[in-house]
Every structure is written in structure tokens, then in C-alpha cells.
């Protein structure tokens, strides 16, 4: 007999066509999977009833499948080199970036020719992507058993500060585990979704995420269902563990241990686990009695919440300093924040919640288990994306993967919508004509981060015709780029004086795999310098052409009237020199030549000005021209 769930009105699925979806919080220390059943978003437990899966994978000799989770965590001391933890810290990083990551990696990295670092284990070299895929596979298996069917899609959360490479690596890990990623979702956004903040019209929210080993603060702005990350801040090596260490030090002192705790690992381990237990007990009690016993050391006594608070206060203050900085980065005052959301197990410590409340001057949201809230939000989002809710409830959280722009004179690319802009979006930019009497304009729509047209991806070309003849630079052509929620780009151009317009629709992401997007991004970093030089050269060449054009037009008109033969000859010669210089590769030299032409022809410009003023004034009385 099948087990059925309650659907939304009118959304009952046909048999075997249930849209099963899940949200996954792939964490540094712990991971979780959640789903929406009968309208309730909840995390899923394993056969032991445990929801949290430690993000730890222990590799074994070839042929034996790796162990994931609690059992792997337990083996981390006896088999440290094959038991991989916290790979989230290195996922999507290149081998050379690894040295700059805080924290210590006890693993042996394999020599490899690819940019992805590999960790040497007893089962062979593995990448952080493969390790993450093992964790995801276990969660997937749990979901399939709990929901009675294959998952149609998942939403996986990532930190707001993850770059494209880290996001791509996370997606690759899910793909490797056989999961279809509906969307990656920023962790703070997921927490906000879990509390239903996305259904509010708008507001600025602070997501305070204090986990076991990391601290993150994100300032989000919600406008019309789109969360924009205003700023993030954090400390990758500041977490609840630091509080435990403070407490363990104090316990060591009480017991009369005088040598540094680090010198005796098993003693330290004992003290840390006692510290953790005391901390947890004091989240509901005001005072507890402790009995600490390790070897010859023995101590009994009372330990109060007040004492605990004194010990951990410095750690909490460190997080608040980071919060202050993030607010400053976002240019936001404390009182502009409408909701504060607590995420992460360490926010269960009463002092943390109190200090956060005192800091912001408002009670933070903490009704949902702070360790599960991110997975819950991801599950809600996955449920919507897979089509289990009625239309109109779709959240729009996507961003443009690459910049969109236009070709301008000289074969350069001008960005109109920068990459990572949340969609839907519309941006307009004004362009003008290059030549006198120009009546048409060709628009070339581009995608990419490079400076020169040929290095970017060409999306579409179209023409705007019927521009009334005007002097160069007088026409005002407004080009509007609009990207809708599905990533569909439409570009329209309109000449503002005459009202003539033209438009075209393109699908920018079509045919571009994620790998290609990433390749294009990497190129834009690699070639940043040569791109800049090429752009400068092209700019000067365009400027040179413009100067020649303007000078020749002027000389044609009144050169012989206003200049003597010698002056005329000199200017003609300078134009020739500039024309020659224009085709060189030296942007500085071209720029100098243009300056020279401009300064040497100043007298001519002055005479032209005098002449036109005389013409305007001749035959008129003073009264006629005074304002």
C-alpha cells in the first residue's frame, strides 16, 4: 500500500508522477536533507533517527565503499589521512589557492597536472568534488527511502560568498551523485525563505550564522521576491569550537592541570567534550554541578550560566565586530534591518542570542531549529521549483552568469548589464552617432567579460534605421537591455528625437554549458592585462579617426578663408602624420599625436569661433543681442 501525502488544492499528482524534491544543506561540518510533505518542510532522519550527517568521508582500501558520517567522524583520530573532513573549505579552489585558506589541512595532496587539487587516500587520489558527492549520495539515499521514490530535483545551498568556481564545483558534486540540481541557493537566502521573509513586500535582513567552526553574517535586501546580497562577512575559523576551548581551559585550571592542554590530546578531547556538554546543559539551566575526572586530576563544583557567559563573551564580541563591518560595507544602519535570523548550532547559547538582540535592538527569529533552518528553506524552494505549488509563487533568485553588452566603435565591448545582476532586470544606456548625417546604426549584442568584441560571444545583431541626419554626437539613441525571469534577453533601441525604434530577442545562456561559462570567465581574468592594452589602443585609434574627420571637415569648409598657405600646409601635414600614426600599435604615441594636433590647431579653432560670432552679430544692434 502506497503512503500518500496531502497536496495543495488541485495539485494532486497522477500515480507514479509525484514531484519529489529536496533541499540539501551541504555544510562544512554537518549536512542535512529536508523535504516538504503534506505542506510541512522537515529534515529527514536516518534509521537511527539522526538528522545531522557529519560532513566526513573515510576512504578504505580499494573495493570497500567509503564510510560517510558519524562512523567516519569517529575514525578521524585513528585514521586521519584517509578520513576527510571540511572539504567544503577547499571545493572549487585551485591547487595554488589552497595555501591561502585559513586552517590546517592534514591531508596529503597528490601531484596533479589539472588545476583541481587531489587528496591522496588509501583508495587513490580523490578530488573535493568526489568527496562531496559521497556525502550527497548518502543524503540522496536517505531521501529516496523516506519519500518512496526517486528525487526529481534538489536545491543545494552554498555560502553567499562562494564564487563561480566554487558554485560550479558544488553543482558538479551533485551531478556526480546523480542528483539534478534545480538551483543553487545562498545559505542566508534559504534561512530567510524558511521564515517566510520572501513573502514580505521588501526589507533588509541580517542572517547571523554561527556554526561549529565558521561564522558568517550576510546582509540581504529583498525587493519584489528577489534577494540581493548587500554584503557578507565572516571568519572561516571562528565558531562554537572557540567557545569550547575557552571553557576547556577554565576546566583545566579548576582541575589543577598546569601544563598546556595541547600537550595531551586525549585529555584535551575529554575536556572539550565536557565543555560541550556543560555548554549545552546551560542553554536551559542557570547552574549545573560538574564532576571532572581525568587520571589523577579530580574536581567537583558548581558552574553557572554567568560564569559561562564571562568565558565566552570575547568570542561573541568578535562576531559582533564582524557584523558591524558587514553593515558598514552594505552602507546600512542597524535600525534599517527589519529581521535578524539566527542560524547555526552556536546560536543556541543564550548569551549569543542575547547579545545579537542587544546589538540590533530587536528580537531575532529563532523559532526554527537553527541547525536545520537552511535545509528547511532549501526544501521549500525545491518544492516550489518542482511545481508542487500553484503558479505565481515562484521565487526569482537567478543572476546573469556573464555580462551583457554592446559593441561600440573600434570593436570594443561596452557592458550594459554586469554579470551577477539579479534577474529580472532592465538597464538602459544612451549611445550616439559617430558621423555627421549618420542615419542608421548597427547593434551587436555581446556576452562575456572581455574588452574586445572578438573575445566575447556574439548573441545577435540588428539595425536601427531612419535616424534623422544630425551632426555626429547629437543623436540620442537609448538602448534597453531586458532580461526576464527565464533568462530571455530582449534588446531594444530607440532614437529619442524621432522616436524610431528596433528590437530583438535572444536567449543568452542558450548553448553555453556551465563549463564554457566558467572558461569564459577564467579567460577574462587571464587576459585582463592584454585586454586592457588592446582596449586603450582601440580607444586612441577611434579618437584619432574622429580628430582627423573633424579637422578635414573644418578645413574643407573654411580652411582657405581663415588660414594662410603655410598654416594650412602645416595642419594638413599634421593630419597626415596622425593618419599614419593611427595604424601603429602604440596607444601612448597616438594619444600624444592627438594632443599635439589639438594644441597646434587651437589658433584655427579660435579664428573659426571669432568668425562665427562676427557673423552672428553683424548687422544687429546692441539691444537685439542683450538678454
Amino acid at each position, binding site marked *: 500500500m502506497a503512503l500518500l501525502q496531502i497536496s495543495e488544492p488541485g495539485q494532486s499528482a497522477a500515480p*507514479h508522477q509525484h514531484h519529489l524534491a529536496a533541499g540539501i544543506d551541504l555544510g562544512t561540518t554537518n549536512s542535512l536533507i529536508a523535504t516538504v510533505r503534506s505542506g510541512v518542510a522537515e529534515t529527514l532522519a536516518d534509521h537511527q533517527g539522526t538528522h545531522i550527517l557529519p560532513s566526513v568521508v573515510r576512504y578504505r582500501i580499494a573495493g570497500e565503499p567509503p564510510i560517510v558520517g558519524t562512523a567516519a567522524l569517529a575514525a578521524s583520530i585513528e585514521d586521519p589521512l584517509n578520513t576527510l573532513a571540511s572539504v567544503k573549505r577547499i571545493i572549487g579552489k585551485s591547487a595554488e589557492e589552497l595555501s591561502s585558506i585559513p586552517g590546517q589541512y592534514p591531508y596529503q595532496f597528490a601531484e596533479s597536472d589539472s588545476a583541481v587539487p587531489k587528496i591522496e587516500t588509501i583508495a587513490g587520489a580523490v578530488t573535493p568534488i568526489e568527496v562531496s558527492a559521497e556525502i550527497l549520495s548518502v543524503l540522496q539515499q536517505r531521501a529516496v527511502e523516506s519519500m518512496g521514490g526517486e528525487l526529481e530535483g534538489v536545491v543545494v545551498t552554498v555560502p553567499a560568498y562562494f564564487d563561480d568556481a566554487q558554485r560550479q564545483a558544488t553543482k558538479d558534486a551533485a551531478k556526480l551523485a546523480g542528483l539534478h540540481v534545480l538551483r543553487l541557493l545562498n545559505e542566508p537566502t534559504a534561512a530567510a525563505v524558511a521564515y517566510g521573509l520572501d513573502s514580505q513586500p521588501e526589507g533588509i535582513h541580517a542572517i547571523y550564522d554561527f556554526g561549529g567552526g565558521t561564522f558568517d553574517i550576510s546582509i540581504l535586501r529583498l525587493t519584489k521576491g528577489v534577494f540581493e546580497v548587500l554584503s557578507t562577512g565572516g571568519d572561516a575559523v571562528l565558531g562554537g569550537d572557540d567557545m569550547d576551548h575557552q571553557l576547556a581551559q577554565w576546566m583545566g585550571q579548576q582541575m589543577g592541570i598546569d601544563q598546556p592542554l595541547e600537550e595531551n590530546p586525549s585529555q584535551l578531547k575529554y575536556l572539550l567534550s565536557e565543555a560541550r556538554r556543560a555548554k549545552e546543559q546551560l542553554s536551559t539551566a542557570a547552574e549545573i554541578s560538574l564532576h571532572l575526572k581525568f587520571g589523577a586530576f579530580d574536581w567537583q563544583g558548581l558552574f553557572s550560566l554567568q560564569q559561562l557567559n564571562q568565558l565566552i563573551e570575547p568570542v561573541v564580541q568578535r562576531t559582533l565586530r564582524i557584523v558591524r563591518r558587514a553593515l558598514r560595507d552594505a552602507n546600512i544602519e542597524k535600525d534599517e534591518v527589519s529581521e535578524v535570523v539566527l542560524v547555526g548550532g552556536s546560536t543556541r547559547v543564550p548569551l549569543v542570542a542575547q547579545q545579537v538582540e542587544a546589538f540590533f535592538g530587536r528580537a531575532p527569529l529563532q523559532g526554527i531549529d537553527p541547525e536545520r533552518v537552511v535545509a528547511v528553506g532549501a526544501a521549500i524552494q525545491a518544492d516550489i521549483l518542482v511545481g508542487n505549488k500553484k503558479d505565481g509563487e515562484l521565487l526569482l533568485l537567478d543572476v546573469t552568469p556573464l555580462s551583457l553588452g554592446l559593441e561600440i566603435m573600434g570593436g570594443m565591448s561596452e557592458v550594459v548589464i554586469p554579470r551577477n545582476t539579479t534577474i529580472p532586470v532592465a538597464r538602459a544606456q544612451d549611445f550616439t552617432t559617430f558621423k555627421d548625417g549618420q542615419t542608421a546604426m548597427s547593434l551587436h549584442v555581446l556576452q562575456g567579460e572581455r574588452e574586445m568584441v572578438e573575445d566575447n560571444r556574439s548573441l545577435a545583431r540588428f539595425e536601427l534605421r531612419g535616424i534623422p541626419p544630425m551632426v555626429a554626437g547629437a543623436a540620442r539613441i537609448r538602448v534597453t537591455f531586458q532580461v526576464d525571469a527565464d533568462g530571455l534577453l530582449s534588446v531594444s533601441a530607440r532614437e529619442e528625437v524621432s522616436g524610431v525604434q528596433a528590437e530583438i530577442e535572444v536567449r543568452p545562456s542558450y548553448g553555453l554549458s556551465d563549463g564554457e561559462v566558467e572558461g569564459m570567465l577564467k579567460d577574462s581574468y587571464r587576459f585582463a592585462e592584454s585586454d586592457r592594452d588592446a582596449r586603450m589602443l582601440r580607444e586612441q585609434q577611434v579618437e584619432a579617426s574622429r580628430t582627423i574627420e573633424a579637422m578635414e571637415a573644418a578645413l574643407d569648409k573654411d580652411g582657405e578663408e581663415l588660414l594662410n598657405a603655410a598654416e594650412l600646409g602645416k595642419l594638413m601635414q599634421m593630419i597626415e602624420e596622425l593618419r599614419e600614426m593611427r595604424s601603429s600599435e602604440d596607444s601612448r604615441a597616438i594619444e600624444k599625436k592627438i594632443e599635439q594636433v589639438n594644441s597646434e590647431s587651437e589658433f584655427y579653432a579660435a579664428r573659426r569661433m571669432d568668425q562665427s560670432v562676427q557673423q552672428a552679430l553683424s548687422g544687429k544692434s546692441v539691444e537685439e543681442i542683450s538678454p
Partner: protein
Amino acid sequence: MAITMTVPAAERVKAFLDNRGTGIGLRLGVKTSGCSGMAYIIEFVDELEEEDQVFECEGVKVIVDPKSMVYLDGTELDYGKEGLNEGFKFNNPNVKNSCGCGESFTV
């Protein structure tokens, strides 16, 4: 003509309705589709249809349309667990055959 609900099922439905915040009850029904003829419908109800019949079971309003009633009369709704999975079960005396998974049936 009656439809009943076990206490665990009723408690679940109440909890789900509370969590959802809105909704007047639970709709049970059938539709013609599926690999074995008929499939069950189990949905929250926001609005009653004119023809709907409403039952009160263990403090929960159960709503059934007259067409479905023919196939569901005598059914008991239960809630159970199988391994990690959990959900609602229809104990329907009208069913003669059901597909392997029990999601669809014939009468």
C-alpha cells in the same frame, strides 16, 4: 455512506492544517488515471464546491465530492510508517485490484 479516519491520521491532518495556517479540511477523492484505473486524491481544502459532502471525523472535516463517494464509501484513512517513509493509507473495501504500489486501483 461514511468515511472514517483513525486517530493517528486525524492528529496528523490537524497538525498539517495548523502548520499551513489556512484551509477548512481535507479532501479525499478519486480520479480516473493511473496504471490500474483509479487514483486517490488527498488535498487541503480552501473552498467548498456546491456538491461536496462534508463529514466530521475525530475533529477533522473530511470533504468528498459525490462522484468520488461511490468509490470511497466505507473507507478508513490511516497514517503509518514503512521504514523511513511515512504517509496516509486508504483502507478501501471497494477495491478489487490495485497496482503493485497501491497508488491506483480498480473497483
